């Protein structure tokens, strides 16, 4: 039985993120399938590249603004822009406006930010979906990525996961601690980034989860990359993959 409400005729634009474009094609696919499952028509503007965050965080704002201006053109219009990443979504509604504070096109940047959503935030708070369907048998350690702080993403993920049969969300210590990815931070401060990651991995693994789930592939890429080097068994999934796999198992 399908518990999820379908909202028909909703047209959205997908911002797949550069990371999914390059490494995590399945996450982008899952995002499309999840959105279609709730009745959205998904449009993928072919000219999209990146949200501009690497240069923004790195402190090279002129370089970042160049990319953001390109993104503004690519995502013209009124449709909601959905991103399978809390971090890229926050870049659109928080980071970009900050670096455009004294720029003539600030209003356009803010307007794009206003209609940009992280995937689960959109499902729960944009579309009003409050339960999910299907089965997913796993103990899940939920990594709340830092860009979700102060947004509704964490709550939205938990809400949906709770309604999936077989899901058990486990808690672990120091959950508020960052995993140390931080974009360019990971290579500018390699030792600190690695130590933060190892601590995070240790805390999560000690809760004995089957899988680590997050709304951000970037954190998971860093964590999984570290864990693999250390020979730690560490399976990661994006929340979109969990939602998609739950449906296919219903």
């Amino acid at each position, binding site marked *: 039985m399908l518990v999820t409400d379908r909202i028909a005729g909703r047209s959205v634009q997908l911002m797949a993120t550069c990371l999914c474009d390059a490494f995590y094609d399945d996450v982008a696919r899952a995002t499309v399938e999840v959105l279609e499952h709730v009745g959205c028509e998904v449009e993928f503007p072919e000219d999209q590249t990146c949200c501009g965050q690497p*240069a923004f965080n790195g402190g090279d704002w002129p370089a970042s603004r160049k*990319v953001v201006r390109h993104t503004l053109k690519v995502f013209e219009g009124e449709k909601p822009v959905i991103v399978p990443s809390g971090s890229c979504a926050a870049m659109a509604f928080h980071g970009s406006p900050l670096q455009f504070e004294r720029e003539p096109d600030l209003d356009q940047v803010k307007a794009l930010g206003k209609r940009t959503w992280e995937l689960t935030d959109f499902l729960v708070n944009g579309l009003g979906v409050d339960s999910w369907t299907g089965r997913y048998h796993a103990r899940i350690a939920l990594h709340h990525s830092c860009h979700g702080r102060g947004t509704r993403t964490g709550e939205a993920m938990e809400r949906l996961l709770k309604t999936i049969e077989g899901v058990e969300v486990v808690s672990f210590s120091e959950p508020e601690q960052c995993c*140390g990815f931080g974009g360019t931070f990971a290579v500018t*401060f390699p030792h600190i980034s690695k130590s933060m990651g190892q601590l995070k991995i240790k805390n999560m693994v000690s809760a004995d989860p089957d899988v680590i789930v997050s709304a951000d592939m970037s954190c998971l890429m860093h964590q999984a990359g570290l864990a693999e080097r250390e020979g730690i068994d560490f399976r990661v999934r994006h929340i979109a993959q969990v939602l998609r796999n739950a449906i296919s198992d219903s």
Partner: protein
Amino acid sequence: MKTQPIDRYAKDLDPEVYASIHQTSNRRVLQREGSLFGDYPHANRLRHWAGELKRHTISHIDKYLEQAVTAMESRGVEVHFASEAESARRQILEILKSHKVDRICKSKSMVTEEIDLRRYLEKHGIETWESDLGEFVVQLDDDHPSHIVTPIIHKNRFQIARTFRDHGLGDYTEDPENLTQQARKFLREKYLSSIGTMTGANFVSAESGRIVVVTNEGNSRFGLAGAKVHIAVVGIEKLVPRDEDLALYLNLLARSSTGQHLTIYTEFIVGPRPENQPEGPENMHVIFIDNGRSETLASDCRDALNCIRCGACLNVCPVFRQASGHAYRHTYPGPIGAVLAPNLVGKEGFAELADLPKASSLCGACNEVCPVDIPIPDLLLRLRNRGKEEGAPGSKIASPPMGAWATLASSPTAWKMALKGGHLMNVIPHGMIPVPALRTWLEDRTLPDWQGGSFRRWLRNRKQK
């Protein structure tokens, strides 16, 4: 490859120091959460309110400062202003000399650390004792505090025991109670024989000119009890508009910093001893210190001046925990320090500290716990941009250049080609990868297989079906 100084410091950090910091800061994070949200389920609203009020105060600082000074002077307080550290030190020395004070006991104050007062006074023949237990240990070790609330967060009791023994305070003991007794006995004699005392101020009410000093050891009170002269050294940003605002800030301060409901001792000091009061200092001096604050006020990092020095952002900061406070090379470490320090040192000093704002994963935990809701990550980002604009070397170290990437990411054709070309990464040996940042990444981590273009292909195939 050149590495960032803070990263290097963290790498070389003594594991014992790391353990002390991690343990205490983690405990503080839990205590804060318990006491704040336990008592105020809507504590975040309090934080926003406290932030707004502080922002208002700082924006009208000239008005509130004038009001505070008038109130203070009407009660017989002598008020002085110091635009920078040297002027503050000189004025303080003159005051002490004019009252013939040759020994003082002072309570904990970060602004006196900022102007390196103790070493200066001692050089000029004034015996100066830190009466806060942590600061006392710092003094004996000729060290610097590594945290704004917990100065010796980097030390454990075994190290303290050795210090006390080496300075002849008593027999070696690892019992915290006994150690405290040793310090108490030593300091008590200093208190009783000094006629001068010094405090900072946690808050100053503009309305009444009251200065508020909080301690957990009662040391400021003890100092005040016997002294004839009281000097309060105060950063100009310590103002709040009214006495009644203190309730909000005192409640937030104690919970945010140590998880207490209220600090054990809270002094409200309005002026020197009036005629009808049997005891207390006959002379009270307040030194208002600017030392880079006006310049910060005029910058886009003004919000940093709202800080009430609770230390919560340090405790929760994963970078501070890995690197320790000393890694920041300034009185104010941690997230707020990475904003305050490069600002307080002024234009000339900025380049020297331009690496500090980079020492953050921008995780935002600092903003989340800040009792006055300072958007620390935003301020760090602004400073990174400034570092890049000014070409400060510290901000460049180990930072991947972004120009070529920006060109690629604003040209869809080139981008699509790169997505395809990236498949090379799956086959060439890592050592041959021409991007230094990528090599650094691969030193500690693996990279998933390059799948560039797969998603787009899937999407196209699907449409054709």
